[in-house]
């Protein structure tokens, strides 16, 4: 059971990101992965949860391109990770409008600073799905 006096789900997640790792949790009773990090497993409420480090490979489930006034367009996408969970992120190193549903992508860390936490971003992985 996560001891919230000692460590929080987000806290553990960020510690992994600082090491360059995308971490996620698995419900050991059902072997199902889930995201975002929680103190208990969803659906069953099980305390039998395990942190794992993702291989970092996933597929774009859906995508949009955001236009803020006076800024270059920005990609926002939902990524389905191979381990069976989904997260929101951004696909970089590619023209935002070229990001397509079904594209394979791989994780890298966008480092944090004194104002913001590190967070995962993705780049095209090259292989077709």
């Amino acid at each position: 059971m996560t001891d919230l006096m000692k460590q929080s789900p987000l806290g553990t997640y960020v510690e992994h990101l600082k090491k360059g790792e995308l971490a996620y949790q698995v419900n050991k009773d059902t072997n199902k992965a889930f995201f975002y990090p929680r103190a208990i497993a969803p659906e069953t409420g099980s305390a039998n949860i395990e942190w794992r480090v993702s291989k970092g490979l996933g597929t774009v489930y859906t995508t949009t391109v955001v236009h803020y006034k006076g800024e270059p367009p920005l990609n926002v996408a939902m990524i389905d990770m191979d381990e069976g969970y989904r997260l929101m992120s951004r696909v970089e190193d590619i023209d935002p409008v070229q990001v397509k549903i079904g594209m394979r992508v791989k994780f890298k860390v966008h480092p944090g600073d004194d104002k913001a936490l590190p967070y995962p971003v993705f780049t095209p992985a090259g292989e077709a799905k």
Partner: protein
Amino acid sequence: MRGLQRGSIAVVGAAESDLGLVAPHTSPVDLMAQATMRALDDCGLKLKDVDALFVAATQVRMGPMSLAEYLRIKPKVFDGTQIGGSSFMTHVAHAQMAIQLGLCEVAVIAYGSTQRSVSRAAASPREFNPYEMPYRPILPISAYAMAAARHMHQYGTTREHLAEVAVSARKWALLNPKAWEKEPLTIEQALNARMVSYPFTVRDCCLVVDGGGAIVLTSAARAKSLKQKPVYVLGVGETLSHANISSLPDFTVTGASVSGPQAFKMAGVKQKDVKMLSLYDAFTINPILFLEDLGFCPKGEGGRFVSGGAIAPGGKLAVNTSGGGLSYCHPGMYGLLVMIEAIRQVRGECGERQVKNCDVALAHGNGGVLSSQCTVIFGSENTL
């Protein structure tokens, strides 16, 4: 006798507050109170008759208390359930529970927003989500845009299909003297408007205006003695599934697939009986998804269904006859106005945009980012 009973309560009063861009320093509660009194005048009841209050608004943290204070009444039953724009549909279900149990007699559901006056960011601040905010999606727009993108990928829905929804809404709005938009809109104009979050241009997105409304509900027995033709609550259904778009499992299916069947079952009607649909159109993808999930066309066919003016005046199915959130009014949380148009259609008050023999109207509310879905089916006395 278990559960909510078909037709046990009726809407007897309904009114909008002032809409569009109100005077500086108007508060959302001013608008709620204005709408409440207009709705009470509509049915000939007085403030002292009101014994139940239902309020939710992003600008008013503790809705029922703020409105009770302003009106200086002490409701016996109150509820501030806040699930986004569909909150008011759930308030109808909660009012029905309370009235059926005899806990109260006259319920007011009210809403107000000054989001145009004070800016949308100030009116609807979002709580910090570390798993979404770093990516700077424009919320809620980007969430719905991603749903549209997935629907386009899976079912071949096109940007033109989305534009058809906007163009149809505008045609209805031109028949509604209270609508914000006064100019016609073409498919070309919708497609070439400023892109906000692909595939949505500004014309795929609802208005950002001030506004509010109120409805008054009472028991079917009491309703018969009042001024207006009662509009009976035949069926209600509701569901919620997530708070943030990252947790929606399937971006092409909404909870209307759950709330709709619940409401249809309670109302004992089928899709073909529904003469008018009021579908929460915060974005052009919404009516497409709701028409599918409420059973008016097969899953995936919504884009093709709305093409060629099918949901415009003179089309196959009357949808959002007020002009909708896209062209009539969308004051942040829009569900109360969604219901008011359905109620007016059943009463026969809609003038140029009136649907003939509108005995059954369906109002569907959406909240958050496709997060909560609530359906209310209204019926005239002919349906009892």
